[in-house]
Protein backbone atom coordinates (compact mmCIF):
# COMPACT_ATOMS: atom_id res chain seq x y z
CA UNK A 1 0.00 0.00 0.00
CA UNK A 2 1.55 3.23 -1.14
CA UNK A 3 -1.09 5.58 0.16
CA UNK A 4 -4.56 5.76 1.53
CA UNK A 5 -5.85 6.65 -1.93
CA UNK A 6 -4.98 3.14 -3.10
CA UNK A 7 -7.59 1.82 -0.69
CA UNK A 8 -10.31 3.63 -2.61
CA UNK A 9 -10.32 0.88 -5.24
CA UNK A 10 -10.94 -2.14 -2.97
CA UNK A 11 -13.40 -0.16 -0.83
CA UNK A 12 -15.53 0.91 -3.80
CA UNK A 13 -15.34 -2.51 -5.44
CA UNK A 14 -16.27 -4.37 -2.23
CA UNK A 15 -19.29 -2.19 -1.52
CA UNK A 16 -20.48 -2.51 -5.13
CA UNK A 17 -20.18 -6.28 -5.50
CA UNK A 18 -21.63 -6.62 -1.99
CA UNK A 19 -24.88 -5.90 -3.84
CA UNK A 20 -24.70 -9.43 -5.23
CA UNK A 21 -24.68 -10.82 -1.68
CA UNK A 22 -27.67 -8.63 -0.82
CA UNK A 23 -29.71 -10.20 -3.63
CA UNK A 24 -28.73 -13.77 -2.69
CA UNK A 25 -29.25 -13.23 1.05
CA UNK A 26 -32.65 -11.61 0.58
CA UNK A 27 -34.10 -14.76 -1.00
CA UNK A 28 -32.80 -16.90 1.84
CA UNK A 29 -34.08 -14.51 4.50
CA UNK A 30 -37.58 -14.22 2.98
CA UNK A 31 -38.20 -17.97 3.17
CA UNK A 32 -36.64 -18.23 6.61
CA UNK A 33 -38.89 -15.38 7.78
CA UNK A 34 -42.14 -17.18 7.04
CA UNK A 35 -41.22 -20.87 7.32
CA UNK A 36 -38.42 -20.68 9.90
CA UNK A 37 -36.59 -23.17 7.69
CA UNK A 38 -33.15 -22.45 6.29
CA UNK A 39 -33.34 -23.36 2.64
CA UNK A 40 -29.93 -25.02 2.40
CA UNK A 41 -30.44 -25.41 -1.35
CA UNK A 42 -30.67 -21.64 -1.90
CA UNK A 43 -27.04 -21.30 -2.99
CA UNK A 44 -27.48 -24.17 -5.45
CA UNK A 45 -30.63 -22.55 -6.82
CA UNK A 46 -28.69 -19.33 -7.39
CA UNK A 47 -25.99 -21.23 -9.26
CA UNK A 48 -28.71 -23.02 -11.24
CA UNK A 49 -29.82 -19.51 -12.21
CA UNK A 50 -26.27 -18.85 -13.42
CA UNK A 51 -26.22 -22.03 -15.55
CA UNK A 52 -29.61 -21.39 -17.13
CA UNK A 53 -28.50 -17.85 -18.01
CA UNK A 54 -25.26 -19.40 -19.35
CA UNK A 55 -27.29 -21.62 -21.71
CA UNK A 56 -29.54 -18.74 -22.75
CA UNK A 57 -26.46 -16.67 -23.47
CA UNK A 58 -24.26 -19.25 -25.27
CA UNK A 59 -26.94 -21.24 -27.17
CA UNK A 60 -29.58 -18.62 -27.83
CA UNK A 61 -27.44 -15.52 -27.74
CA UNK A 62 -29.66 -13.76 -25.23
CA UNK A 63 -28.01 -11.18 -22.98
CA UNK A 64 -28.04 -12.55 -19.39
CA UNK A 65 -29.71 -9.47 -17.89
CA UNK A 66 -32.31 -9.39 -20.66
CA UNK A 67 -32.85 -13.11 -20.05
CA UNK A 68 -34.29 -12.24 -16.64
CA UNK A 69 -37.51 -11.08 -18.30
CA UNK A 70 -38.14 -14.80 -18.88
CA UNK A 71 -35.97 -16.16 -16.09
CA UNK A 72 -37.76 -14.40 -13.22
CA UNK A 73 -41.26 -15.76 -14.00
CA UNK A 74 -39.77 -19.17 -14.85
CA UNK A 75 -37.99 -19.45 -11.50
CA UNK A 76 -41.01 -18.03 -9.67
CA UNK A 77 -43.19 -20.83 -11.03
CA UNK A 78 -40.45 -23.40 -10.38
CA UNK A 79 -40.34 -22.18 -6.77
CA UNK A 80 -44.08 -22.59 -6.33
CA UNK A 81 -43.89 -26.13 -7.76
CA UNK A 82 -40.97 -27.12 -5.51
CA UNK A 83 -42.70 -25.67 -2.46
CA UNK A 84 -46.05 -27.24 -3.20
CA UNK A 85 -44.98 -30.74 -4.21
CA UNK A 86 -41.79 -31.27 -2.23
CA UNK A 87 -41.03 -28.90 0.63
CA UNK A 88 -44.52 -28.29 2.01
CA UNK A 89 -45.33 -31.98 2.20
CA UNK A 90 -42.25 -32.52 4.34
CA UNK A 91 -42.84 -29.29 6.24
CA UNK A 92 -46.25 -30.53 7.40
CA UNK A 93 -44.46 -33.39 9.15
CA UNK A 94 -41.71 -31.27 10.67
CA UNK A 95 -39.37 -28.39 9.89
CA UNK A 96 -36.45 -30.86 10.08
CA UNK A 97 -37.97 -32.96 7.31
CA UNK A 98 -38.19 -29.87 5.10
CA UNK A 99 -34.54 -29.12 5.85
CA UNK A 100 -33.52 -32.60 4.70
CA UNK A 101 -35.61 -32.31 1.53
CA UNK A 102 -33.92 -28.97 0.80
CA UNK A 103 -30.52 -30.55 1.37
CA UNK A 104 -31.42 -33.33 -1.07
CA UNK A 105 -32.64 -30.83 -3.65
CA UNK A 106 -29.31 -29.05 -3.40
CA UNK A 107 -27.41 -32.28 -4.07
CA UNK A 108 -29.66 -33.13 -7.02
CA UNK A 109 -29.12 -29.67 -8.55
CA UNK A 110 -25.34 -29.90 -8.09
CA UNK A 111 -25.09 -33.34 -9.67
CA UNK A 112 -27.43 -32.50 -12.53
CA UNK A 113 -25.24 -29.49 -13.27
CA UNK A 114 -22.12 -31.69 -13.24
CA UNK A 115 -23.75 -34.00 -15.77
CA UNK A 116 -25.04 -31.24 -17.99
CA UNK A 117 -22.17 -28.76 -17.93
CA UNK A 118 -19.17 -30.68 -16.47
CA UNK A 119 -17.38 -29.53 -13.30
CA UNK A 120 -15.39 -26.94 -15.27
CA UNK A 121 -15.52 -23.33 -14.20
CA UNK A 122 -17.84 -21.12 -16.28
CA UNK A 123 -18.74 -17.46 -16.42
CA UNK A 124 -21.21 -15.26 -18.23
CA UNK A 125 -19.43 -13.41 -21.01
CA UNK A 126 -21.01 -10.29 -22.47
CA UNK A 127 -19.91 -7.27 -24.46
CA UNK A 128 -19.69 -5.28 -21.21
CA UNK A 129 -17.96 -7.98 -19.14
CA UNK A 130 -14.55 -6.39 -19.37
CA UNK A 131 -15.66 -2.77 -19.42
CA UNK A 132 -14.80 -0.52 -16.53
CA UNK A 133 -15.52 3.05 -15.53
CA UNK A 134 -13.49 5.67 -13.79
CA UNK A 135 -14.16 7.73 -10.66
CA UNK A 136 -11.22 10.06 -10.07
CA UNK A 137 -8.19 7.81 -10.10
CA UNK A 138 -10.18 4.64 -9.46
CA UNK A 139 -11.15 2.18 -12.18
CA UNK A 140 -14.11 -0.03 -11.37
CA UNK A 141 -15.42 -2.97 -13.44
CA UNK A 142 -18.86 -2.16 -14.80
CA UNK A 143 -20.39 -5.46 -13.61
CA UNK A 144 -19.71 -4.50 -9.99
CA UNK A 145 -21.76 -1.36 -10.47
CA UNK A 146 -24.52 -3.51 -12.02
CA UNK A 147 -24.49 -5.75 -8.89
CA UNK A 148 -25.09 -2.71 -6.74
CA UNK A 149 -27.84 -1.28 -8.94
CA UNK A 150 -29.56 -4.68 -9.05
CA UNK A 151 -29.50 -4.87 -5.24
CA UNK A 152 -30.95 -1.38 -4.95
CA UNK A 153 -33.78 -2.10 -7.38
CA UNK A 154 -34.58 -5.48 -5.80
CA UNK A 155 -34.64 -4.09 -2.26
CA UNK A 156 -36.98 -1.28 -3.31
CA UNK A 157 -39.35 -3.60 -5.16
CA UNK A 158 -39.50 -6.18 -2.36
CA UNK A 159 -39.94 -3.47 0.24
CA UNK A 160 -42.85 -1.90 -1.65
CA UNK A 161 -44.39 -5.34 -2.25
CA UNK A 162 -44.22 -6.28 1.43
CA UNK A 163 -45.50 -2.89 2.60
CA UNK A 164 -48.14 -2.00 0.03
CA UNK A 165 -49.90 -5.16 -1.13
CA UNK A 166 -52.29 -7.47 0.70
CA UNK A 167 -50.14 -10.45 -0.28
CA UNK A 168 -46.97 -8.75 0.95
CA UNK A 169 -48.63 -7.82 4.22
CA UNK A 170 -49.83 -11.41 4.56
CA UNK A 171 -46.21 -12.60 4.23
CA UNK A 172 -45.10 -10.00 6.78
CA UNK A 173 -47.90 -10.97 9.19
CA UNK A 174 -47.26 -14.70 8.81
CA UNK A 175 -43.57 -14.24 9.57
CA UNK A 176 -44.45 -12.43 12.82
CA UNK A 177 -47.22 -14.71 14.09
CA UNK A 178 -48.35 -17.62 11.95
CA UNK A 179 -51.37 -18.66 14.02
CA UNK A 180 -52.81 -15.18 14.28
CA UNK A 181 -52.20 -14.72 10.56
CA UNK A 182 -54.40 -17.74 9.94
CA UNK A 183 -57.15 -16.09 12.00
CA UNK A 184 -56.96 -13.15 9.57
CA UNK A 185 -57.93 -15.49 6.72
CA UNK A 186 -54.37 -16.02 5.52
CA UNK A 187 -53.75 -19.50 4.14
CA UNK A 188 -50.23 -20.37 5.32
CA UNK A 189 -49.60 -22.88 2.52
CA UNK A 190 -50.26 -20.13 -0.03
CA UNK A 191 -48.01 -17.66 1.76
CA UNK A 192 -45.19 -20.24 1.79
CA UNK A 193 -45.65 -20.82 -1.92
CA UNK A 194 -45.53 -17.13 -2.80
CA UNK A 195 -42.55 -16.51 -0.51
CA UNK A 196 -40.68 -19.46 -2.01
CA UNK A 197 -41.59 -18.37 -5.53
CA UNK A 198 -40.17 -14.91 -4.85
CA UNK A 199 -37.09 -16.44 -3.26
CA UNK A 200 -36.52 -18.49 -6.43
CA UNK A 201 -37.10 -15.42 -8.62
CA UNK A 202 -34.41 -13.68 -6.54
CA UNK A 203 -32.18 -16.72 -7.09
CA UNK A 204 -32.60 -16.22 -10.84
CA UNK A 205 -31.51 -12.58 -10.49
CA UNK A 206 -28.68 -13.51 -8.11
CA UNK A 207 -27.57 -16.25 -10.51
CA UNK A 208 -27.21 -13.85 -13.43
CA UNK A 209 -25.22 -11.27 -11.47
CA UNK A 210 -23.14 -13.99 -9.84
CA UNK A 211 -22.23 -15.30 -13.30
CA UNK A 212 -21.36 -11.81 -14.50
CA UNK A 213 -19.20 -11.11 -11.43
CA UNK A 214 -17.45 -14.38 -10.57
CA UNK A 215 -16.66 -17.68 -12.29
CA UNK A 216 -18.85 -20.54 -11.05
CA UNK A 217 -18.86 -24.34 -10.88
CA UNK A 218 -21.64 -26.78 -9.88
CA UNK A 219 -20.38 -26.72 -6.27
CA UNK A 220 -20.19 -22.91 -5.93
CA UNK A 221 -23.63 -22.83 -4.34
CA UNK A 222 -22.39 -23.93 -0.93
CA UNK A 223 -20.00 -21.01 -0.49
CA UNK A 224 -22.69 -18.54 -1.55
CA UNK A 225 -25.13 -20.12 0.89
CA UNK A 226 -22.61 -19.62 3.67
CA UNK A 227 -22.00 -16.02 2.58
CA UNK A 228 -25.75 -15.32 2.44
CA UNK A 229 -26.09 -16.83 5.88
CA UNK A 230 -23.30 -14.58 7.16
CA UNK A 231 -24.98 -11.53 5.62
CA UNK A 232 -28.32 -12.28 7.29
CA UNK A 233 -26.74 -12.87 10.68
CA UNK A 234 -24.65 -9.72 10.30
CA UNK A 235 -27.61 -7.53 9.37
CA UNK A 236 -30.12 -9.09 11.73
CA UNK A 237 -32.83 -11.63 10.91
CA UNK A 238 -35.96 -10.24 9.35
CA UNK A 239 -34.59 -6.79 8.64
CA UNK A 240 -34.47 -5.62 5.01
CA UNK A 241 -32.20 -2.70 5.88
CA UNK A 242 -30.02 -5.13 7.80
CA UNK A 243 -29.71 -7.47 4.83
CA UNK A 244 -28.82 -4.55 2.56
CA UNK A 245 -26.18 -3.04 4.84
CA UNK A 246 -25.00 -6.53 5.85
CA UNK A 247 -24.39 -7.48 2.22
CA UNK A 248 -22.41 -4.33 1.52
CA UNK A 249 -20.32 -4.73 4.69
CA UNK A 250 -19.66 -8.34 3.75
CA UNK A 251 -18.48 -7.32 0.28
CA UNK A 252 -16.37 -4.53 1.72
CA UNK A 253 -14.63 -6.67 4.32
CA UNK A 254 -14.06 -9.41 1.75
CA UNK A 255 -12.44 -6.95 -0.61
CA UNK A 256 -10.28 -5.36 2.08
CA UNK A 257 -9.38 -8.79 3.47
CA UNK A 258 -8.17 -9.78 0.03
CA UNK A 259 -6.15 -6.59 -0.32
CA UNK A 260 -4.34 -6.90 2.99
CA UNK A 261 -4.10 -10.65 3.53
CA UNK A 262 -4.31 -12.05 0.02
CA UNK A 263 -6.81 -14.66 -1.20
CA UNK A 264 -6.96 -16.44 2.19
CA UNK A 265 -8.25 -13.24 3.80
CA UNK A 266 -11.22 -12.96 1.48
CA UNK A 267 -13.53 -15.12 3.55
CA UNK A 268 -11.57 -15.05 6.79
CA UNK A 269 -12.02 -11.32 7.38
CA UNK A 270 -15.81 -11.12 6.77
CA UNK A 271 -16.51 -14.10 9.02
CA UNK A 272 -14.29 -12.74 11.76
CA UNK A 273 -16.40 -9.58 11.38
CA UNK A 274 -19.57 -11.65 11.75
CA UNK A 275 -18.24 -13.14 14.98
CA UNK A 276 -17.13 -9.77 16.33
CA UNK A 277 -20.44 -8.07 15.53
CA UNK A 278 -22.39 -10.96 17.04
CA UNK A 279 -20.36 -10.67 20.22
CA UNK A 280 -21.26 -7.01 20.52
CA UNK A 281 -24.81 -7.23 19.11
CA UNK A 282 -26.14 -10.82 19.21
CA UNK A 283 -29.30 -9.81 17.31
CA UNK A 284 -27.26 -8.45 14.39
CA UNK A 285 -26.79 -4.82 13.32
CA UNK A 286 -30.46 -4.11 12.61
CA UNK A 287 -32.09 -7.05 14.41
CA UNK A 288 -34.65 -6.55 17.14
Amino acid at each position, binding site marked *: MDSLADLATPITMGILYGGLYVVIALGLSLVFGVMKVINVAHGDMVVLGSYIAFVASTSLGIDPILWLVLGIPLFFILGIVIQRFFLYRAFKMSADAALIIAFGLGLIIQNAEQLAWTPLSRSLQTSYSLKSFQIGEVYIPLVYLLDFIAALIIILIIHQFLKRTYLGQ*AITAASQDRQT*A*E*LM*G*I*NPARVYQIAFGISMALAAVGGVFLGLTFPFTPTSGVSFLIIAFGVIILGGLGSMTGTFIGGLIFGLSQSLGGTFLGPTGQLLVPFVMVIVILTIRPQGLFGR
Partner: protein
Amino acid sequence: MPEDVLLNVKDIDVFYGTLQILWNVSLEVLTGELVAIAGANGAGKSTLLKTIAGMMHPTTGNIEFLGEDISRKNAYNIVTMGISLVPEGRGLFPEMTVSENLMIGSYNRNARALSKEQLCRVYDLFPILKERKNQMAKTLSGGEQQMLVIGRGLMSNPKLLIIDEMSLGLSPLIVNNLFQVLHEIKEAGVTLLLVEQNVWKTLHEADRAYVIETGRIVMSGDALKLCEEVEIRNAYFGV
Protein backbone atom coordinates in the same frame (compact mmCIF):
# COMPACT_ATOMS: atom_id res chain seq x y z
CA MET B 1 -87.02 -19.68 16.15
CA PRO B 2 -84.35 -21.91 14.64
CA GLU B 3 -83.67 -19.47 11.78
CA ASP B 4 -82.24 -17.07 14.33
CA VAL B 5 -79.55 -19.50 15.45
CA LEU B 6 -76.26 -18.07 14.25
CA LEU B 7 -73.87 -20.52 15.84
CA ASN B 8 -74.82 -23.98 16.97
CA VAL B 9 -72.27 -26.14 18.75
CA LYS B 10 -73.60 -29.66 19.11
CA ASP B 11 -72.14 -32.24 21.49
CA ILE B 12 -68.48 -31.73 20.68
CA ASP B 13 -65.59 -33.66 22.18
CA VAL B 14 -62.17 -32.08 21.67
CA PHE B 15 -58.75 -33.59 22.34
CA TYR B 16 -55.26 -32.16 22.64
CA GLY B 17 -53.36 -35.22 21.43
CA THR B 18 -54.68 -37.97 23.67
CA LEU B 19 -55.88 -35.60 26.37
CA GLN B 20 -59.59 -34.84 26.29
CA ILE B 21 -60.29 -31.16 26.97
CA LEU B 22 -63.99 -30.76 26.11
CA TRP B 23 -66.74 -33.25 26.92
CA ASN B 24 -70.03 -33.18 25.12
CA VAL B 25 -70.16 -29.39 24.91
CA SER B 26 -73.21 -27.79 23.32
CA LEU B 27 -74.11 -24.14 23.00
CA GLU B 28 -76.15 -21.82 20.85
CA VAL B 29 -75.67 -18.20 19.93
CA LEU B 30 -78.64 -16.36 18.43
CA THR B 31 -78.29 -13.46 16.01
CA GLY B 32 -77.89 -10.16 17.84
CA GLU B 33 -77.07 -11.61 21.24
CA LEU B 34 -74.18 -10.99 23.57
CA VAL B 35 -73.36 -14.39 25.01
CA ALA B 36 -70.73 -15.03 27.65
CA ILE B 37 -68.82 -18.16 28.48
CA ALA B 38 -67.53 -18.00 32.02
CA GLY B 39 -65.20 -20.41 33.71
CA ALA B 40 -62.02 -20.73 35.70
CA ASN B 41 -58.55 -20.96 34.25
CA GLY B 42 -58.04 -24.32 32.54
CA ALA B 43 -61.75 -25.08 32.21
CA GLY B 44 -61.41 -25.38 28.43
CA LYS B 45 -62.72 -21.97 27.37
CA SER B 46 -59.91 -21.15 24.99
CA THR B 47 -60.03 -24.65 23.50
CA LEU B 48 -63.74 -24.17 22.81
CA LEU B 49 -63.04 -20.89 21.02
CA LYS B 50 -60.16 -22.33 19.03
CA THR B 51 -62.43 -25.17 17.94
CA ILE B 52 -65.16 -22.77 16.83
CA ALA B 53 -62.58 -20.69 14.92
CA GLY B 54 -61.17 -23.77 13.18
CA MET B 55 -57.75 -23.89 14.82
CA MET B 56 -58.73 -27.21 16.40
CA HIS B 57 -61.31 -29.76 15.31
CA PRO B 58 -63.80 -31.83 17.31
CA THR B 59 -63.51 -35.63 17.24
CA THR B 60 -67.26 -36.03 17.66
CA GLY B 61 -70.18 -33.64 17.32
CA ASN B 62 -70.33 -30.71 14.96
CA ILE B 63 -70.44 -26.95 14.76
CA GLU B 64 -72.91 -25.17 12.51
CA PHE B 65 -72.66 -21.54 11.48
CA LEU B 66 -75.68 -20.16 9.60
CA GLY B 67 -76.78 -23.76 9.12
CA GLU B 68 -73.52 -24.87 7.51
CA ASP B 69 -71.25 -27.44 9.14
CA ILE B 70 -67.89 -25.75 9.82
CA SER B 71 -66.33 -28.28 12.18
CA ARG B 72 -63.86 -29.55 9.54
CA LYS B 73 -63.02 -26.20 7.98
CA ASN B 74 -59.69 -24.39 8.37
CA ALA B 75 -59.35 -21.20 10.37
CA TYR B 76 -58.64 -19.10 7.27
CA ASN B 77 -61.88 -20.24 5.61
CA ILE B 78 -64.00 -19.68 8.70
CA VAL B 79 -62.99 -15.99 8.90
CA THR B 80 -64.22 -15.55 5.35
CA MET B 81 -67.62 -16.96 6.39
CA GLY B 82 -68.03 -14.32 9.09
CA ILE B 83 -66.58 -15.58 12.37
CA SER B 84 -63.80 -13.44 13.77
CA LEU B 85 -61.79 -14.60 16.78
CA VAL B 86 -59.93 -11.99 18.81
CA PRO B 87 -57.22 -14.14 20.35
CA GLU B 88 -56.21 -14.19 23.98
CA GLY B 89 -53.04 -12.42 25.03
CA ARG B 90 -53.46 -9.71 22.37
CA GLY B 91 -51.98 -11.62 19.46
CA LEU B 92 -51.06 -8.70 17.28
CA PHE B 93 -48.31 -8.24 14.73
CA PRO B 94 -45.74 -6.34 16.81
CA GLU B 95 -43.54 -5.11 13.96
CA MET B 96 -46.42 -3.78 11.89
CA THR B 97 -48.02 -0.37 12.38
CA VAL B 98 -51.46 0.08 13.92
CA SER B 99 -53.07 0.76 10.54
CA GLU B 100 -51.26 -2.21 8.96
CA ASN B 101 -52.54 -4.45 11.76
CA LEU B 102 -56.06 -3.22 11.09
CA MET B 103 -55.82 -3.56 7.31
CA ILE B 104 -54.56 -7.14 7.47
CA GLY B 105 -57.78 -7.86 9.37
CA SER B 106 -59.64 -7.29 6.11
CA TYR B 107 -57.46 -9.74 4.18
CA ASN B 108 -60.26 -12.19 3.45
CA ARG B 109 -61.99 -11.75 0.11
CA ASN B 110 -65.39 -10.86 1.60
CA ALA B 111 -63.96 -7.98 3.62
CA ARG B 112 -61.45 -6.39 1.25
CA ALA B 113 -63.88 -4.26 -0.74
CA LEU B 114 -65.27 -2.78 2.48
CA SER B 115 -61.92 -2.20 4.16
CA LYS B 116 -61.92 1.63 3.82
CA GLU B 117 -65.37 2.07 5.42
CA GLN B 118 -64.58 -0.54 8.03
CA LEU B 119 -61.37 1.31 8.93
CA CYS B 120 -63.32 4.56 9.45
CA ARG B 121 -65.76 2.67 11.66
CA VAL B 122 -62.97 1.25 13.79
CA TYR B 123 -61.33 4.68 14.12
CA ASP B 124 -64.72 6.08 15.22
CA LEU B 125 -65.02 3.40 17.89
CA PHE B 126 -61.42 3.78 19.04
CA PRO B 127 -60.19 7.34 18.23
CA ILE B 128 -56.88 6.64 19.99
CA LEU B 129 -56.02 4.10 17.29
CA LYS B 130 -56.33 6.81 14.65
CA GLU B 131 -53.93 9.01 16.59
CA ARG B 132 -51.46 6.15 16.79
CA LYS B 133 -52.01 4.70 13.32
CA ASN B 134 -48.38 4.99 12.20
CA GLN B 135 -46.89 3.61 15.41
CA MET B 136 -45.61 0.06 15.67
CA ALA B 137 -48.20 -2.11 17.41
CA LYS B 138 -45.70 -3.18 20.07
CA THR B 139 -45.37 0.41 21.31
CA LEU B 140 -49.02 0.60 22.40
CA SER B 141 -50.18 0.26 26.01
CA GLY B 142 -52.04 -2.88 27.10
CA GLY B 143 -55.46 -1.24 26.79
CA GLU B 144 -54.63 0.19 23.36
CA GLN B 145 -53.40 -3.21 22.21
CA GLN B 146 -56.71 -4.75 23.25
CA MET B 147 -58.53 -2.01 21.32
CA LEU B 148 -56.34 -2.78 18.32
CA VAL B 149 -57.09 -6.51 18.31
CA ILE B 150 -60.83 -5.89 18.72
CA GLY B 151 -60.66 -3.34 15.91
CA ARG B 152 -58.73 -5.77 13.76
CA GLY B 153 -61.36 -8.42 14.49
CA LEU B 154 -64.03 -6.02 13.21
CA MET B 155 -62.08 -5.35 10.01
CA SER B 156 -63.04 -8.79 8.69
CA ASN B 157 -66.66 -7.59 8.70
CA PRO B 158 -67.83 -10.44 10.97
CA LYS B 159 -71.33 -11.58 11.74
CA LEU B 160 -70.01 -13.11 14.95
CA LEU B 161 -67.17 -11.55 16.91
CA ILE B 162 -65.59 -13.81 19.52
CA ILE B 163 -63.33 -12.24 22.12
CA ASP B 164 -61.07 -14.34 24.32
CA GLU B 165 -60.21 -12.91 27.77
CA MET B 166 -60.69 -9.27 26.88
CA SER B 167 -60.20 -7.89 30.38
CA LEU B 168 -57.10 -9.89 31.26
CA GLY B 169 -54.51 -7.58 32.81
CA LEU B 170 -56.49 -4.38 32.19
CA SER B 171 -57.68 -1.81 34.73
CA PRO B 172 -61.42 -1.80 35.61
CA LEU B 173 -61.75 1.65 34.01
CA ILE B 174 -60.44 0.42 30.66
CA VAL B 175 -62.58 -2.72 30.90
CA ASN B 176 -65.69 -0.56 31.44
CA ASN B 177 -64.82 1.52 28.39
CA LEU B 178 -64.29 -1.59 26.31
CA PHE B 179 -67.68 -2.98 27.34
CA GLN B 180 -69.29 0.32 26.29
CA VAL B 181 -67.74 -0.08 22.87
CA LEU B 182 -68.91 -3.70 22.73
CA HIS B 183 -72.48 -2.51 23.21
CA GLU B 184 -72.03 -0.08 20.32
CA ILE B 185 -70.69 -2.93 18.20
CA LYS B 186 -73.67 -5.06 19.19
CA GLU B 187 -76.11 -2.29 18.28
CA ALA B 188 -74.45 -2.08 14.89
CA GLY B 189 -75.60 -5.65 14.29
CA VAL B 190 -72.61 -7.79 15.26
CA THR B 191 -73.32 -10.80 17.46
CA LEU B 192 -70.83 -11.21 20.31
CA LEU B 193 -69.46 -14.20 22.14
CA LEU B 194 -67.21 -13.39 25.09
CA VAL B 195 -65.05 -15.64 27.16
CA GLU B 196 -63.93 -14.37 30.52
CA GLN B 197 -62.47 -15.30 33.84
CA ASN B 198 -63.84 -12.00 35.12
CA VAL B 199 -67.23 -13.60 35.79
CA TRP B 200 -69.13 -10.85 37.62
CA LYS B 201 -68.54 -8.13 35.10
CA THR B 202 -69.21 -10.40 32.15
CA LEU B 203 -72.46 -11.76 33.50
CA HIS B 204 -73.73 -8.25 34.13
CA GLU B 205 -73.07 -7.26 30.54
CA ALA B 206 -74.26 -10.39 28.73
CA ASP B 207 -77.75 -11.48 27.64
CA ARG B 208 -77.13 -15.16 28.21
CA ALA B 209 -74.26 -17.13 29.61
CA TYR B 210 -72.75 -20.57 29.85
CA VAL B 211 -70.59 -21.71 32.71
CA ILE B 212 -67.88 -24.18 31.81
CA GLU B 213 -66.09 -26.31 34.36
CA THR B 214 -63.39 -28.93 33.66
CA GLY B 215 -64.44 -29.20 30.03
CA ARG B 216 -68.18 -29.48 30.55
CA ILE B 217 -71.01 -26.96 30.41
CA VAL B 218 -72.41 -27.02 33.94
CA MET B 219 -74.89 -24.17 33.80
CA SER B 220 -76.54 -22.03 31.20
CA GLY B 221 -79.30 -19.50 30.88
CA ASP B 222 -80.18 -15.87 31.47
CA ALA B 223 -76.99 -14.10 32.52
CA LEU B 224 -78.44 -12.14 35.43
CA LYS B 225 -80.20 -15.18 36.83
CA LEU B 226 -76.97 -17.10 36.61
CA CYS B 227 -75.40 -14.34 38.63
CA GLU B 228 -77.68 -15.13 41.48
CA GLU B 229 -76.94 -18.81 41.41
CA VAL B 230 -75.28 -19.82 44.58
CA GLU B 231 -73.05 -22.32 42.85
CA ILE B 232 -71.28 -19.61 40.95
CA ARG B 233 -70.55 -17.77 44.14
CA ASN B 234 -69.22 -20.91 45.67
CA ALA B 235 -67.20 -21.82 42.64
CA TYR B 236 -65.66 -18.44 41.90
CA PHE B 237 -65.98 -16.16 44.85
CA GLY B 238 -65.71 -18.58 47.73
CA VAL B 239 -68.70 -16.98 49.48
